[in-house]
C-alpha cells in the first residue's frame, strides 16, 4: 500500500538480521560460512531498501529502535533479538548506525570486526568509530541520553491520566451501587489514555502505581492492576486493541468488592472466618455485576471470566472453589500477577502487612509454578526489574535512592531517584542510570542494599505528585 509502511516492515527485518549477524559473529569467525551467509542476506535486504531511500539510519533511543526517525514496532518473535541488539548498542555507547550508497559484504565484515572488539577498549564507542572509519557506506553515532527537559509537563500528564482513571473508577462504582447507567465508552477512553501512557511513559505511570498511601485503596488498586497488566501485556507484544481490552478487564477485576460491606473491607484488624467467607465471595459478585452492567460481548465476557478467576491460582487452588478443572484465561493469569504484586506492596489489604517491592517479588518468585504462571512471571520480572519501582536502595556511592524506572536489558541496573547524596545530605534527585559507566569502563553506581520503604514512609510521591 505505501512505501513507508513497507519500509518499516523491512526495517524490522533488518534490525533482526543485524542482531543475527552479530550473534553469529560472536560465536564464529567472521569468515565462517554461517556468518558470511547471514551477511549476504543482510546486504541484499539493505541494498534493496537503499534503492528507495538514499540513507538508512537505525537509532536506539531509550529502549526503542527508530528507523529514519520513525519508531520500529515489532512482533513477539523479534523481542529477544531487539533486546539483544539494544544491549549490545548500550555496551558500546553506540546510538545509531547509518547506511548509505551501496553496501558491500566486505564493508559489513569491517564493521563487524570493529563492533565485536570495541567493548574491550577503554572507550568502546571511540574504538568502534575508529574501526569503521575506513568504510564510507556505514557510519555510527553515539548513544543519546534521553533528554529530561519537559519532564515536568510529562509528569503532569501522567499524573492526570492516573488520577482520571482512579476518579473514573470511583465514579463507576458509585454509579453501579446507585443503579445508574455506566458508560463503557468512557471506560474505554480512560483505559486508552493509560495504554498510550504505557507506550510512551511506562516508567512514570508504573511509578504512580508504586505510591500506596492513598485513602481509597480499592480504586487505586483497580487502576494499579490495570496499569501493571497493560505494561505486562505490552511487554509480551499485545496490540493496542488487546491492551485496551486487558486494561478494561483488569480495571473491573475487583468490581465484586462493592458488595462487601465497608466495615469488613476497611477493617483494621484481621478477618474472622465469616468475614473471610464474605471477602471470598467477591469474584462471584463481580461476575454478577459485570453481566448486569451491559449485554454480552467479547469484553464483558472476558471481564466476567477474569473477575471470577483472578483469585484462582495457577494450580487452581485459591478461591472460589471449583468443582471441575478449567484452563485459566490468559488475561486472568496476567491480572492475577498484577493483583498479587500490587496487593502485597500495599498497606490496606487483608494481610495488613505491606511488603517492600523487592520482597514482594521474591515471594512471588516462590509462588511461580504453583500459585502463579511461571512463564508470565518471567516476563513480569523482566518488565518490573529485579528492583521494582519504589524500592529503597543504597548504592555503593553511599547514596540512598528510590528505584524510579526498570531497565529491561540490565534488570539489576534500574534508574534511581537519589534522595540522600553521598555526603549524607537530603536531596531531591537527580535521577541516575545505573548502566552509566565511568571513563575506566566501570559502572558509576551499583545497588548494594535494599530497604523496606514502607517502614520509613518513603515513596516516590514527592517527585511524581
Amino acid at each position, binding site marked *: 500500500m505505501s512505501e*513507508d509502511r513497507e519500509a518499516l516492515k523491512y526495517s524490522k527485518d533488518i534490525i533482526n538480521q543485524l542482531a543475527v549477524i552479530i550473534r553469529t559473529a560472536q560465536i564464529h569467525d567472521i569468515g565462517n560460512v554461517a556468518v558470511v551467509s547471514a551477511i549476504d542476506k543482510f546486504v541484499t535486504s539493505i541494498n534493496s531498501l537503499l534503492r528507495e531511500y538514499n540513507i538508512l539510519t537505525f537509532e536506539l533511543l531509550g529502549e526503542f529502535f527508530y528507523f529514519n526517525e520513525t519508531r520500529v514496532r515489532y512482533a*513477539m*518473535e523479534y523481542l*529477544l533479538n531487539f533486546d539483544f541488539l539494544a544491549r549490545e548498542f548500550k555496551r558500546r555507547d553506540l546510538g545509531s548506525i547509518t547506511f548509505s550508497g551501496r553496501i558491500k559484504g566486505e564493508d559489513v565484515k569491517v564493521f563487524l570486526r570493529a563492533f565485536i572488539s570495541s567493548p574491550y577498549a577503554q572507550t568502546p564507542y571511540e574504538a568502534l568509530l575508529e574501526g569503521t572509519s575506513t568504510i564510507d557506506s556505514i557510519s555510527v553515532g553515539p548513544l543519546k541520553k534521553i533528554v529530561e527537559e519537559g519532564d515536568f509537563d510529562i509528569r503532569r500528564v501522567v*499524573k*492526570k491520566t492516573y*488520577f*482520571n482513571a482512579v*476518579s*473514573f473508577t470511583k*465514579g463507576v462504582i458509585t454509579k453501579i451501587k446507585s443503579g445508574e447507567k455506566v458508560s463503557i*465508552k468512557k471506560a*474505554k*477512553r480512560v483505559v*486508552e*489514555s493509560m495504554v*498510550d501512557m504505557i507506550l510512551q511513559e511506562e516508567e512514570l505511570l508504573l511509578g504512580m502505581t508504586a*505510591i500506596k*498511601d492513598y*485513602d481509597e485503596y480499592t480504586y487505586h488498586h483497580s487502576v494499579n492492576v490495570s496499569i501493571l497488566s497493560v505494561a505486562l501485556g505490552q511487554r*509480551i507484544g499485545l496490540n*493496542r486493541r488487546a491492551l485496551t481490552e486487558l486494561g478494561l478487564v483488569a480495571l473491573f477485576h475487583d468490581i465484586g468488592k462493592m458488595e462487601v460491606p465497608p466495615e469488613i473491607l476497611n477493617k483494621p484488624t484481621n478477618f474472622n472466618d465469616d468475614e473471610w467467607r464474605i471477602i471470598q*465471595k467477591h469474584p*462471584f459478585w463481580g461476575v454478577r455485576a459485570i*453481566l448486569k452492567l451491559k*449485554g*454480552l460481548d*467479547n469484553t464483558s*465476557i472476558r471481564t466476567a*471470566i477474569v473477575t471470577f*478467576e483472578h483469585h484462582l491460582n495457577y494450580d487452581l487452588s485459591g478461591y*472460589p*472453589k*471449583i468443582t*471441575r478443572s*478449567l*484452563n485459566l*484465561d490468559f488475561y486472568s493469569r496476567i491480572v492475577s500477577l498484577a493483583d498479587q504484586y500490587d496487593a502485597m506492596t500495599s498497606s490496606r489489604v487483608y494481610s495488613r502487612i505491606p511488603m517492600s517491592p523487592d520482597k514482594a517479588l521474591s515471594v512471588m*518468585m516462590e509462588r511461580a509454578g504453583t500459585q502463579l504462571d511461571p512463564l*508470565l512471571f518471567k*516476563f513480569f520480572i523482566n518488565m518490573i526489574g529485579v528492583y521494582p519501582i519504589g524500592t*529503597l536502595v*543504597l548504592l555503593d556511592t553511599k547514596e*540512598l535512592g528510590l528505584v524510579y524506572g526498570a531497565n529491561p536489558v540490565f534488570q*539489576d541496573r534500574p534508574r534511581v531517584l537519589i*534522595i*540522600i547524596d553521598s555526603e*549524607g545530605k537530603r536531596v531531591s534527585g537527580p535521577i541516575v542510570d545505573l548502566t552509566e559507566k565511568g571513563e575506566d569502563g566501570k559502572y558509576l553506581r551499583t*545497588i*548494594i*542494599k535494599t*530497604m523496606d520503604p514502607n*517502614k*520509613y*514512609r*518513603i*515513596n516516590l*510521591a*514527592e517527585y511524581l*505528585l
Partner: protein
Amino acid sequence: MTKDIRQIDDVRITRDIVQTILKAKKTIRMYPENNPIYLKTIEDVYSRFREFLDYRDELTLRIKQYEILLDTTPVYSNPDKEDNLALFFFKDGLRELTFLKGLYREEIEEFLKIIALDFDREIVDDDVVTLLWERDFQNIKYVADEEFLTEDEGYEDKASETVKTRSATVDEIMKAYTDAFLAEGVNGISIVNLTDKDLQSLVKEMEGDQEGKIEKLSDILFEMIYHIENQAELEDIYRFIRNTMTYSLEQGNMDAFIHIAKSLIRMSEDKGISEGIKKLIHILLSSISSEEMINYVGEIFDTNPEIDEGILLEYKELLDKTAISPLIALLGRLKSIHGRKRVISLLVDLGKMDIQTLAKGLYDSRWYVVRNILYILRQIGDKKAVEYLIDTVRHPDSRVRREAIKAIGELKSPHSLQILKDCLNDYDPSIRKTAVKALSNFGSETAKRIILAKVNEKDFLNREFDEKKEFYEALSKWDDDEIREFLIRVLKKRAFLKRSKHDENKACAAYCLGFIGNRDNLAVLERLRDSKNNLIREYANFAIRKIEYERR
C-alpha cells in the same frame, strides 16, 4: 502566489474538503464498497485532500462546538444540533484533527467509514475517538480533550495532598539512611533471562487463548451455581445462562450452544444440586426448543452452508416435541435450500413424537411449507398421518396435491384407496397421473379394480396420450389373466369412430404388456409390428425389446 492569496486558497480548499467529508458521511453508509457512487465519494474526498497536501505538510482542523476552523478562519459553521459535523466530533472530546502529507486513500476511506457509523445505535460501543485510536492512522492525528472523563475534578489534588502529608519527614529519611548501612547486602539476586523457548511457549499460549470464551463463561456460571446463597442470586445466574445461550446463537456459535446445553444436562443429573435449581435447569433445557432459540438457529442454518454433521446430530438430541411448531414456522421463513433441508431433517425425527402437531403444518398458508410437511410425513411413514392428508389432496396448489398423493400412496392406510380414487378425477392431469401411480404402488385387488374401472370409463378414451400411458403402465403391476384379457381386448378392438384415440389405447396396451414382461404376450405384440399405425408399431417394438431384454 502571495501569502494572502495562498491563505485564501487554503481556506477555499479546506471548505471544499469539509463539505465533501460531510457529503461522504451520509453517502458511504448507503452503498456497498464496490458501488461506483461509494468509490467516487472516496475519490472525491481523497483528491480534495491531495489538492491541499500537495503544497502543504499538514492540514489541521480545529474543532469547536458549532464550528470547524482552519487556524482562526471558520471553514464550517452550523448552529443546529442535528447533522452537525462540528458537534459530532466535539461531543466525544475531539478538538483537533490533523491530516498529514502522505495521507493514503485507504486511510481516508477508513476515516470516512468511522464517521459514517451510526453512533446512536446501541451496538456501537465505541466513540469516534476510540475508533480513531484503535486504527492508529499513520497520517491522521487528533487531539482529544480527556477532561470530560474526570468524575471528580478535585480528586487529584485531594489524593496528592493526602499522600504528601503522610510522606516521610527528613528525620525518617535520615534514619533510613543510617539503617541502610546496617542492612543485609543484595548478594545472589536472581536475574531472569528470557529464552527463545519462553517466547515460543508464550506465542503458543496466546494463540490458544483466542477461542472458547463463551464456553468458558458458561463453565463459570455453572460453577457459580454451587455458590448460590439466595433466590436473587439464583435468578441472576438463571438469566445469565439463558443470555449466554442466546448470545452463542446470535454469534452463530453452535459449538458453544451445544456445550452449554450439555452442561445443563450434566447439572440436571447432579445429585448435589437442589430441586429448586434443577427446576430452573429444566426450564433452560426446554427453552432450547423455544421459538426464540429456534429462530436464532434458523439464522445460522440459513447463512452457514457448512455445519458439522456431528453438531447437527447433537443439536437434534437436545430438542423435544415442543420444537415442532417453531420449526414449522421457521420452514416458511428460511431462504436457503441447505437451511430448509436441515429443518426438514430435524422435523423428520421430532415429528415422530407428535404427528398431530406436525400435521398442523399442513394448514400453513404457504404451499411450500405444506409440501415440506407432506414430505416429512412421507419420511416418517406413520399410517396415522393419512387422516391429516385428506384435506391436502384438495389443496389449491397442485404441487401440494402431488406430494399429498405420494404420501398417501406410500402410507397405505385403509382410507388411502378412496382418497386416491377421488384424485383420479382431479382436474389436473399430472395429479391424476400421480394418483394412478400411487394406486399401482398399493398393488391390491381393490386398487386394480379402481384403475380398471377408470380406464374402462367412456371418456377415458379422450384423455391425453401421456396420461393414458401412465394409467396403462399402472396396470402392469398386476400380471394376471384379468389384466391380460383386458389388454388383448383393447388391442383387438375395432373402431370406426375416434380411430386415432383407439389406436392410442392400443399403443398404451402394448406398452403395458412390455412392462408386464411375460413372454406369453410376445405373440400378440409381434402381430402389432405390422400395424399401419406408427404409434402402435413403436410401442409394440418397445414392449418386445423390453421383454426380450429382461429375458436375458
